């Protein structure tokens, strides 16, 4: 017969990825569910996804540019620089926190029906991606406003998107597993995202870190998010935007290792979720 399943301790084996592939429609449907449910019974609806980055950008621009008088990268309007960083950060932080909470949020499914559990974190990326797209449209609108021409570097954009996806999934999967047993994770995630927003070059340029704290610069660019954010800004804003290709080393190494290990960890633990959730 076409379908033969063997159930034993230690979980499913070789047919796992095939199973995942067979269930690709479910992945799509779960993503669609998360997106369409997001703003149900809200007055502003999808406008929230516009208001949030816009307000954040305005506050940051006021504080860092007008009050603190930090210089932007040469010839780049400060608000545009912020929105560029914010756009990719929206994707990373949204995907990362949704992935981390994905198993717990779907606990009703975990305890009642089988499908490859990896579908839940994968589908959770969708919400962050939609927010990203909206923010990107906003960015394009703002560049028209400043008459800022797009740079040819934009062809590298997909590369940075994939990298963001890999790192958000890599870190998020770890947390999603731990979150099943220790709900502390649900408290920790917003905190990480909040701290990350200031630890990463969103409201300021990495150039300032290099110039004012040269002795710490090499540690600063070890943060894997720095490479992603600067790279992404470089794609949108062109060569004027500060981007140190050296910062990509840590991004590539850390996120690929994180993804590899966390997928292994996830696979090892996924059949025990139901006993602890």
């Amino acid at each position, binding site marked *: *017969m076409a*379908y*033969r*399943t*063997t*159930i*034993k*301790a*230690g*979980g*499913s084996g070789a047919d796992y990825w095939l199973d995942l592939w067979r269930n690709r*429609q*479910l992945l799509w*449907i*779960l993503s669609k*569910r998360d997106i*369409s*449910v997001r703003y*149900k*019974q809200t007055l502003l609806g999808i406008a929230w996804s516009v208001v949030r980055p816009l307000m954040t950008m305005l506050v940051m621009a006021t504080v860092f540019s007008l009050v603190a008088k930090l210089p932007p990268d040469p010839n780049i309007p400060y608000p545009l620089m912020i929105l560029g960083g914010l756009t990719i950060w929206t994707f990373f932080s949204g995907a990362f926190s949704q992935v981390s909470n994905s198993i717990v949020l779907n606990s*009703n*499914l*975990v*305890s*009642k*029906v*089988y*499908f490859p559990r990896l579908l839940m974190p994968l589908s959770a990326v969708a919400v962050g991606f939609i927010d990203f797209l909206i923010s990107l449209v906003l960015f394009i609108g703002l560049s028209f406003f400043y008459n800022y021409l797009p740079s040819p570097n934009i062809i590298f954009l997909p590369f940075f998107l994939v990298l963001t996806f890999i790192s958000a999934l890599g870190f998020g999967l770890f947390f999603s597993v731990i979150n099943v047993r220790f709900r502390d994770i649900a408290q920790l995630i917003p905190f990480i995202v909040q701290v990350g927003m200031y630890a990463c070059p969103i409201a300021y340029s990495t150039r300032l870190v290099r110039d004012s704290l040269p002795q710490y610069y090499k540690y600063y660019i070890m943060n894997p998010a720095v490479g992603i954010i600067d790279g992404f800004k470089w794609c949108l804003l062109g060569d004027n935007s500060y981007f140190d290709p050296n910062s990509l080393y840590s991004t590539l190494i850390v996120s690929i290792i994180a993804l590899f290990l966390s997928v292994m960890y996830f696979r090892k633990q996924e*059949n*025990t979720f*139901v*006993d602890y959730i």
Partner: protein
Amino acid sequence: MHVITAENISKKYIIDHQGTRKPTSFRDAVSDTFDQFFTKKDKDAASNRKEEFWALKDVSFSIDQGDRIGIVGHNGAGKSTLLKILSRITDPTTGQVTIDGRVASLLEVGTGFHPELTGRENIFLNGAILGMNKSEIKQSFDAIVDFAGVEKFLDTPVKRYSSGMYVRLGFAIAAHLEPEIMIIDEVLAVGDAEFQKKCLGKMRDVSESGRTLLFVSHNLTAIQALCNKSFYFEKGKLLDQGETSHIVTTYLSRVSQKKLERQWDDVNTAPGNDQIRVKSFKLVPDYLDDLMHIDVRTSMEIQFEFWNMIDDAQLNLSLHLYSYTGECIFNVGTASQSFAKGLISGTLEIPGHFLNDGSYMVSIMVVKDTSSVIYNMEEALTFDVEDYREGVTWYGKWPGYIRPQLNFSLNQAESVVNG
């Protein structure tokens, strides 16, 4: 041909007794945490709190294609654990199961329904979760809507559905799955009579088309109507399997053999304290005719004896009856009376046609001077009441903790003769 083969499957759970005593206030919670913090080094204490529990132990069986298997057993017998393993929701601790064919399991009606989504959206969502692909869902969409009878509410969020509509829609989707093997857990417990008839009919169709069915229910009537073979589980073991009629008889007779009597002869080791020791605790059913099991109609007596070791004590007794899930069904108390040292006995009559089917626990509390509890015996006795019905075609779990026979009648107050 075997479609399911299970070899020595077992499932172990670790019960953490730490969780059994719940702190009742924030202060308790804080002091508990401190206590635990300082006693952490005491490894013995920690391991004592954890206990192994085998929900299933060395279960082996094989199921042929087209079999309709009923699974019976009491709460905690391992039925649900077995279904969870067969549906791949949890792994067995040891052993192996081989399944040939696509499995759909219905452990709950409307799994994954999202309250904010409309009926239409939920059909696609739930169908996909149960393993249907989009074209299959589209194909059976009209049939599902028709079966559930929700045409008018297709574009209403399901959170606005009545519970009946919700359940009907959930079952309708599951009923249109076309798996080779279908696993169903107690879904008939919901819905009205007409809908249940539809469901049973649908399940019969499923089995007649050569597909295999596994069905768990507390309702023996439904199992007898639907299943050709049955498994009987008790305490995690597969005790017996065979023709359904045979298994149902075994099951009912096993129930009556359950120990309904507890006795302690030595005053010093009997449960209790230096004021009260319990001597015996019995449930004496007044079996009907030649039946040897307690059903809804059976009247019974709870008889007990205990030693009183206080001189000239003013005592009264309080007896609680709990459902299996721990809700108190009733509490009866005796009047306060004075007793000398020695043996005290008591009886409580429970009439027939009073308790509903289910599992029950009895606990007693000995009270001194009408105010201070001097001894509390929890779970002094447990017993089961089986379902019995007459003249109804409804197979669902009869709702409620009690099923009293009250005077309840209908009259034709006026009739209209068609002219």
